[in-house]
Structure formats: structure tokens, C-alpha cells
């Protein structure tokens, strides 16, 4: 469903991604790990269409479309969801209202009927139950005054309601205590399905203890330098990122 081919991206004239390749099929969970500054968050931002990222070469295809040609809201309507590393606060805008506006905008773009507020509320209540989140989440402003953990759980909740085809989670595990981490992971697991692809971007292996990926990729200096099964994460944890770099240098020699 997602095919990234030789992607080069610069930010303010500085090359960050330097030929990244990645293919994600429906039902697969890909973990992207890597040291700070490797380009992990740049990848997430480019997939969602944030401004300020210049694609200098390569392509990203999603299903049959050129993803990079789409506006952010068109990508969302096409089924791409980004869980933000830093979810944005929008004071005064009710969470449920925001989500219904997003949900209906996406459905409208896809030519599907919109849900009225009663139908929608039924739907979000179900999702809350599945994720065992408190109902008061619905009545608060979007991320406004939320703790770090609440913001991340709200992202997962939004993902559950919007049911994207491809979910990109940008360091959703960062800054979470162990209980919050487990809740986030449970949320992700409950949404795994044969139709949905995941890209989990993370710095640490611990999220992968709870969400077992099908593939693990190591991103370093703007490229995928190592790919493997779930066991790769454990090796990284044991040896550190320098180990990958060393092996790569060794392999090249």
C-alpha cells in the first residue's frame, strides 16, 4: 500500500533523508528505529505533508496515488494518519466536535455519507470502551491542558475513530510511564488488522515489547541501513546504535 522509493528530503537546505526505501503492505507493522537526528521525525512529517520539508528526489506512492502531490487533508481522507510526537493544543474546541468535523470531512471527501452527532457519539463511545479511556476525554478541548500521557492516548483514540488505512506513529511512546505505554500499546494492538498498515517510529525498543512488529528497520543518517525481523530490536537494545554503524562500515570494507 505504501511504497517509498529513494526518498531524499532537505530541511532549510540541509539534506536529512538521503535515499530512503520502504514498502509497507496491508496488515504489516513496521518499526523504524534509529538514533536522534537520523531523520525519523522527518519521515513522519513528509508522509503527513508538513510544510518546510523539501523533497529533492524520490517518490512516495500510497495505493495508486502520488502521496506527495496531496494536501495534508487529502492524505488524511486517503487514509493516512499521523499520531503526532507533540499533539497540538486547540483551546476552546471540543474534542468530540473536532473529531466529528475531521471524520465527516474525510467521509465527504471519499463520497461517503456523513454521520449526525447521535450516530457519531455512539461510535466514539464504543471506541472509548475498547480503549478503556474515560468519557470526560470527549468533553475537553482538543489536547488543551492534557498531560503528556493524555495527549498520546488522545492520538490513539483519534486513530481508533478515524480508522485509517495506514497509521504512522511518531515517537508515540516517548515521555510515557510504563502504565501509559501499556495502554497506548493495547490501543495499537486492538487496531491491528489485515487491512491496516502501521509505521511505528521509535527511539527505544520498549514499545516493541508490547507491539510486536513484523519488520524492524534501522534508520541512520537518512537511510535504512539494516532491516530484519522483531529480533533486530533486541539486538539493537543490547548493542546500541553504534553497533549497526560499525557493521555497516565493516560490510562496506
Amino acid at each position: 500500500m505504501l511504497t517509498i522509493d529513494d526518498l531524499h528530503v532537505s530541511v532549510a537546505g540541509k539534506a536529512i533523508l538521503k535515499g530512503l526505501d520502504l514498502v509497507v503492505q496491508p496488515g504489516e507493522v513496521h518499526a523504524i528505529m534509529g538514533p536522534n537526528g537520523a531523520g525519523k521525525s522527518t519521515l513522519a512529517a513528509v508522509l503527513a505533508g508538513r510544510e518546510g520539508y523539501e523533497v529533492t528526489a524520490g517518490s512516495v506512492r500510497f495505493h495508486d496515488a502520488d502521496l506527495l502531490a496531496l494536501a495534508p487533508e487529502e492524505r488524511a481522507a486517503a487514509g493516512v494518519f499521523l499520531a503526532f510526537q507533540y499533539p497540538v493544543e486547540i483551546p476552546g474546541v471540543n474534542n468530540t466536535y473536532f473529531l466529528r468535523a475531521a471524520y465527516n470531512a474525510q467521509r465527504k471527501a471519499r463520497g461517503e455519507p456523513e454521520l449526525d452527532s447521535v450516530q457519531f457519539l455512539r461510535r466514539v463511545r464504543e471506541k472509548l470502551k475498547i480503549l478503556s479511556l474515560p468519557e470526560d476525554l470527549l468533553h475537553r478541548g482538543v489536547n488543551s491542558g492534557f498531560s503528556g500521557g493524555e495527549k498520546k492516548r488522545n492520538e490513539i483514540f483519534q486513530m481508533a475513530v478515524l480508522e485509517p488505512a495506514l497509521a504512522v506513529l511518531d515517537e508515540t511512546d516517548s515521555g510515557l510511564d510504563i502504565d501509559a505505554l501499556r495502554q497506548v500499546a493495547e490501543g495499537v494492538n486492538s487496531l491491528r488488522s489485515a487491512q491496516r498498515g502501521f509505521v511505528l517510529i521509535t527511539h527505544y525498543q520498549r514499545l516493541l515489547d508490547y507491539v510486536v512488529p513484523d519488520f524492524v528497520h534501522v534508520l541512520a543518517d537518512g537511510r535504512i541501513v539494516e532491516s530484519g525481523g522483531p529480533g533486530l530490536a533486541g539486538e539493537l537494545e543490547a548493542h546500541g546504535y553504534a553497533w549497526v554503524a560499525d557493521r555497516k562500515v565493516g560490510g562496506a570494507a
Partner: protein
Amino acid sequence: MAATPQQIADRLGQRYSAGFVTDIESDVVPPGLDEDVVRLISAKKGEPDWLTQWRLQAFRHWLTLPMPEWAKLDIAPIDFQAVSYYAAPNQKNRPKSLDEVDPKLLETFDKLGVPLHERARLAGVAVDAVFDSVSVGTTFRKELAEVGVIFCSFSEAVREHPELVRKYLGTVVPHTDNFFAALNSAVFSDGSFVFIPRGVRCPMELSTYFRINARDTGQFERTLIVAEDDSQVSYLEGCTAPMRDENQLHAAVVELVALDRAQIKYSTVQNWYPGDENGVGGIYNFVTKRGACRGVRSKISWTQVETGSAITWKYPSCVLLGEESVGEFYSVALTHHRQQADTGTKMIHLGRNTRSKIVAKGISAGRGQQTYRGLVKVQPTAAGARNHTQCDSLLIGKQCGAHTFPYIEVRHPDAVVEHEATTSKISEDQLFYCRARGIGEEDAVSMIVDGFCREVFRELPMEFAVEAKRLLEVSLEGAVG
């Protein structure tokens, strides 16, 4: 994709949907102002001598006053002799009921969404419709009269209830109050009068709809609302005007009197023609609004949504005289293109344990300039006075301005006064977050603006809140991107 100039022009044309002109013959007094004009207006309205003298006294005082310059407004000199001070649609006889009103007038109000006919009128809202200088008609009069509520045009109140008008007129805003109040007192034409007797809770919303139509005229209405002991009323006003290249003057005075335990809620959705994107035309809106909480535990609450007018100069205020009386001011003001607004409130605490609350939200876009100006004054008699003020500005674009001028004057050690002001813009992050969830940019902007204004919209009656939200969306078109 860049729009062609024609597309942009078309869009701007649509922007102000109330900008049409009603083609109707009017009785217009020639431009100019002197004592004879004041007498003529009074005579046309068949007023008693005491009122004519009251007007003349105000006029003589006005002559001694300079135009105020302290507001942060850039106002081109106004030639007060070039304005016509009275314009009324020609009607052979004063219509006795709405059925006798000129169909063109009824049609005008239909088009503005304020139908006056029996069959179409708004459920649960009694309307007084004012066209240029006169009231066209008032709905639901019979139903209101049954509970003793008087709701009629000001002219009619002078004829039918002179003792009430004489008792309260000018007692909250004396003609000496300021330049525009003096001018209004001299030449005021029509407006609404409301009297809620003791113990009555007004069974429906009362509403006045003001329409300026004639060219080169000013509108100078006067509204007086009196709520006796233990009574309650919610009053709304709306206003529009045609699109014209000349500036037109609107200088109103509103006086509210709340006696013991009475409550008055006064809401305004102001959508006078704001002028075009280059600042040509538009209404000069210079308004004096003040409420006196005279009785114990009385309450006056002002809510305003100000999206129109080229220049707005208004400070709906509360004089909190009665013990434990409460004053509130909720405001959303929006300035776009070349609009300017200097608005806010005054809360004067005189009685013990009086409370006031101010929530002011200013949105500035394009080259709009917006100023909040507010006074919170606690006099030595106001032990236990409380005020909380929240003043937020939202800036959209690099060429607009948002300013805050709060005045806090405290002369009692028991008082607690709190003022907070913040300034923000719609951040790129907020817009991107919305778009990443599938919400388009314009929708995202109105959603964020709506969230910013929520605290104020909550105070408006439901239909008005919807209208206010829509106005804000229309007024902000093209503000981002």
C-alpha cells in the same frame, strides 16, 4: 491556485449579504443641524414641549464639546452639517397594525431574515423593526401586553407612557455624558422602549432590528429598558446597512435600569456595513450604552458580537450601585481589511459586594486595528467588590494590530480585582494538525476562531449564536493564506 481579480471581486460582493438598498420614497430632512432642525424632528414626532426643550438643552451642550480624540482610532474629519438627521419612509397615515405597513418594508425585513408577518415571524422572539429614523412595527404586542410588558417604539412610548419615559430618560446616560451622547439626545429619532413590571419574567426574547437605508443620513436611535423589582428580560439587537461608498454615521444611546433583583440581558450582533477591503465606505458606529444596577442583587449582562462597521467606538458599561449587584460584559469584536474598533466596558463598583466579569475577545485580520479599552473602578463605598477580566487577542496576519488598554482604579482594601490579557495567533501547528486530520484550511480557521470565542458565544441566545458564528466565518473569508 490564484483567483482572478473578477473572482475575488465577486466573492467580496457576496461577503456582505445585507448590502442591498430598498427603493422606497422617504421623507428626508435636508442635511445640516441647528436648533430649527432639532425642533423640526421633535415636531415631526409630535413630541410634548418638555422633550423638545430637553433636546434643545442637549444640542446647546453639544455645541460646546469637541469631538473626542482619545480612542485609538483614525477617523477622517466628520462634517456634521453634511448629515441628514431624519429620514422616514413615506407612509400616508401611521399604520395601525403590521398589515398596513408598506409591503416593500416588510419585504426588506424578510430579506434580512427578520420576517414581521404574523405567519412567518420568529417563534418566541418579539421584534421591533426600525427603518432609518422610524419604527416600522412591533410583533407579539398583544401577547406581551397580557403580562404587562411594554415593548414599543420610543416615539410611541413618548405618546403612550410619557410618565415612564420622563422618569428614566437621561438618568443613566445624561446628555452631558459625551459628545455623541449629547448629539443623540438632540436628534434621536426612534428606538425601542421596554418596561418589565414588578415580578414579571418576560415570556419571550425581545429584539430590535435596526436598518439604515437612506443615503447620507445618520441613524440616532435611543433605547430605554426598565426592569422593575424581581423582573427579568432578555433583549437582542441586530443591525445592517446597504453598501455605499460614503461613510454613514450611527450614534445611538442605550440606557438600562435594573431595580431590586431585576435581571437584564442585552445582546448585540452588530453587522453594519464595514466598508470595502480598501476602507471605502462603511458605518461609523459611535454608541453609548450603559446600564444602572440600582437595586440590590440586580444584574445587567452585556453580550456583543461586533463584526461590522468601518469604525466602532462603544463601551457598554455597568454602574453597580445596588448591594450585591452584578455586571457582566462578554464581547467578540472582529476587524478585517481596514476596519477599526475601540471597544470595551466600564464597571463602576459603588455598592457593597458588587461583582463584575469581563470577557473580551478581539480578532484582528488584514489591516484591521482593534483596541480593548476597559475601566474597572472600585469606589471607597464598594467593600467586598470583585472583578475578573479576561482579555484575549487573536492576530491573523502581519499587518493588523491588537491593543489592550485596561484601567484599574481601586480605592477599597477589600476589593479583589484581576486582569489577564493574552495575545496569540493561529499557529501553523494548529492548522497543520487540523489538516492532518482531514479538515480543510478555511474550516480549520473558523474552528479555531470559534473555539477562541466560545466563552462569549455561550452567552448568546441559541439563534443568535449561530448567526454570530456565521458572520464571523463570512467576515474572515480570505484572511488566511
